[in-house]
């Protein structure tokens, strides 16, 4: 075994192979790294390459785009930001995804609180709350149409009870998509918030109680600060889920108007206008917008206490 380890890299060739592999292993380079290979191949083939390819596509606009909007190879971006029909989809998507994510997170908090204790029917209740996770978005949309459509059970019931004169317009508009986003997003938010909440030592609340804090003070001063980083993470996940809304926007929304979301616009550019490069542009901008929101939330989260939430600190 060589005793001099100062310059391992360039003198390595002159040393014995045992010594080289040993020194590499000490730096974390050894045969076990090969185990990363499948994951690496997977990431390159299914994420990095298509992503780079997509970015490449965005700078290869169709001739008709260049003719109409100018801007050379950036014609797709010029059109995106200048064509209100496309550009407004950012706002339309945001208008759905932000309130849906906020609602899912905020409503999860009291429910998770309630379901923390022991009571009869707790299992049934949490099962009911989580069950929608097993429904696909298409099934949810179909169910919504049957239940809340103009001829749906709900409207027929309300009409028969003479509670309303006209059927309520609950689907094929903004509301319909919002319902669908809440049905499919809430179980995720609830499960995440519950697990974050169960990580907080209950003796902290007991301690706050003996120190004279009422339930509101206990929540605001003790539980919420410890829960907040988890809430931020939950918000990000449900937001991303809602932002890429596509099937429900088409099935229970108003795909030409108020629920003209970005995913739908990208699909149209590709499927109806055969404008592959424009579709990629929309997809890329969609990713950038999501990243922006995530960055803002993570920035806020970085100011929060994120350490252990056990009693021992």
């Amino acid at each position: 075994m060589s005793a001099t380890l100062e310059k391992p890299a360039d003198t390595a060739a002159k040393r014995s192979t045992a010594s080289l592999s040993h020194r590499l292993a000490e730096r974390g380079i050894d045969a076990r790294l090969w185990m990363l290979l499948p994951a690496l191949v997977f990431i390159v083939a299914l994420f990095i390459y298509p992503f780079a390819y997509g970015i490449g596509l965005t700078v290869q606009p169709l001739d008709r785009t260049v003719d109409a909007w100018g801007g050379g190879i950036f014609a797709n971006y010029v059109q995106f930001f200048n064509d209100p029909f496309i550009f407004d989809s950012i706002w339309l998507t945001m208008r759905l995804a932000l309130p849906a994510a906020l609602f899912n997170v905020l409503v999860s908090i009291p429910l998770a609180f309630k379901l923390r204790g022991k009571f009869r029917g707790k299992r049934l209740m949490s099962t009911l709350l989580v069950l929608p996770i097993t429904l696909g978005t298409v099934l949810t949309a179909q169910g919504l149409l049957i239940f809340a459509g103009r001829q749906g059970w709900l409207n027929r019931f309300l009409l028969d009870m003479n509670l309303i004169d006209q059927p309520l317009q609950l689907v094929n508009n903004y509301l319909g998509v919002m319902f669908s986003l809440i049905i499919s997003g809430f179980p995720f938010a609830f499960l995440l918030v519950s697990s974050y909440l169960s990580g907080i030592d209950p003796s902290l609340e007991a301690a706050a109680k003996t120190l004279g804090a009422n339930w509101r003070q206990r929540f605001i001063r003790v539980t919420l600060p410890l829960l907040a980083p988890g809430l931020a993470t939950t918000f990000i996940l449900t937001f991303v889920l809602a932002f890429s809304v596509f099937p429900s926007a088409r099935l229970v929304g108003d795909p030409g108007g108020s629920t003209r979301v970005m995913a739908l616009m990208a699909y149209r550019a590709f499927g109806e206008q055969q404008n592959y490069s424009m579709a990629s542009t929309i997809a890329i901008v969609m990713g950038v917008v999501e990243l922006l929101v995530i960055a803002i939330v993570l920035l806020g989260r970085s100011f929060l206490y994120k350490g252990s939430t056990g009693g021992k600190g």
Partner: protein
Amino acid sequence: MGITATKFGALELVNVGRSFGGQAALADLSLTIEAGEFIALLGPSGCGKSTALNCLAGLLPLTHGQVLIDGKRVDVLPAEKRDFGMVFQNYALFPHLSVHKNVAFGLQMRGVPRDEVNKRVTEALMLVKLDAHAKKLPGQLSGGQQQRVAIARAIVLEPRLVLMDEPLSNLDAKLRIEMRSEIRRLHQTLGLTTIYVTHDQEEALSLADRLVVLRDGHVQQIGTPQELHDSPANWHVADFMGYRNLLDVAVDVVNDTTATVSGGGMSLVGTRVGSVAPGESARVAIRPHDLIVGTSATGPNAISGTVIASEYQGREFALEVETDHGQRLHVTAETAPAAGSAVTVTVAPERVLVYPESLTGHGAALAPLPVGAGAS
């Protein structure tokens, strides 16, 4: 000293009980505590001592009985209105708040003006010698320091009563003894009324003015450390108080205060505690310290046997002696005879306590106590 305990006359527990689904975790705890007293609730795990503490703190509602301070009921108040300070076994410090803010928490909840909060927090932290660490988060402190923060957080409110739930059980042996005298010092300087839960008899004996021994939710004995140490009310308390030799015997003769018993090839004269009758089986309790190792097998209560193991405990040895009839005895000695050597151990009749075998239900063995069973 700025921090002083809020004074009251007496705290009364009247038949306090708590059941969980029909199962009594604590039953008929009656106790009068005077201001400034240090009471230890002692017992093995599952004996109901933590239940008692949580009931007092208001974290668990009572199912029976009342808690009164100067005749006013406090068991109907929610925990946040009781003005009791509590120190938790796992400290329960708020991990996201600095030491200063942890201690300030209770004062802020009471709407104390900011200047006074700062003044009192600084004072409390000086009292537990943590003023240099005020800005740190609890996670940056050692276990002993965290425990001191928890104590400061409880006493800064000048509570009527301080409740401590096995506060030292998470600390190492050396720190435990240090913190023990720290708690005793704080209790004495501030005149705090304290109820202290522990399973460690040594801790309870050294800290408390009075001890309450619990078993299966029932009080076994209430008394001063000396009373419990010298005259346990039943063999269970004796067992807990360090009478490591518990022998099952038969009663031969019963006199006024003494009883002659035999069992395991031995015949012993002992002091009768509780009612035993000739022919009944009984249980004898002897402390390892009361067994004296000698060589001559004369006099009463002389038992001959063989040393089978010795363990050095610093200053003295813990011996295990097997009698000629196979009964093992724990003996403390100043010198250690070699394993295998024959010895004779003797014990004074007044240090052989003869108890009825049954604990007569729960706590009923309290009746024929040789020493007054506390002030309740």
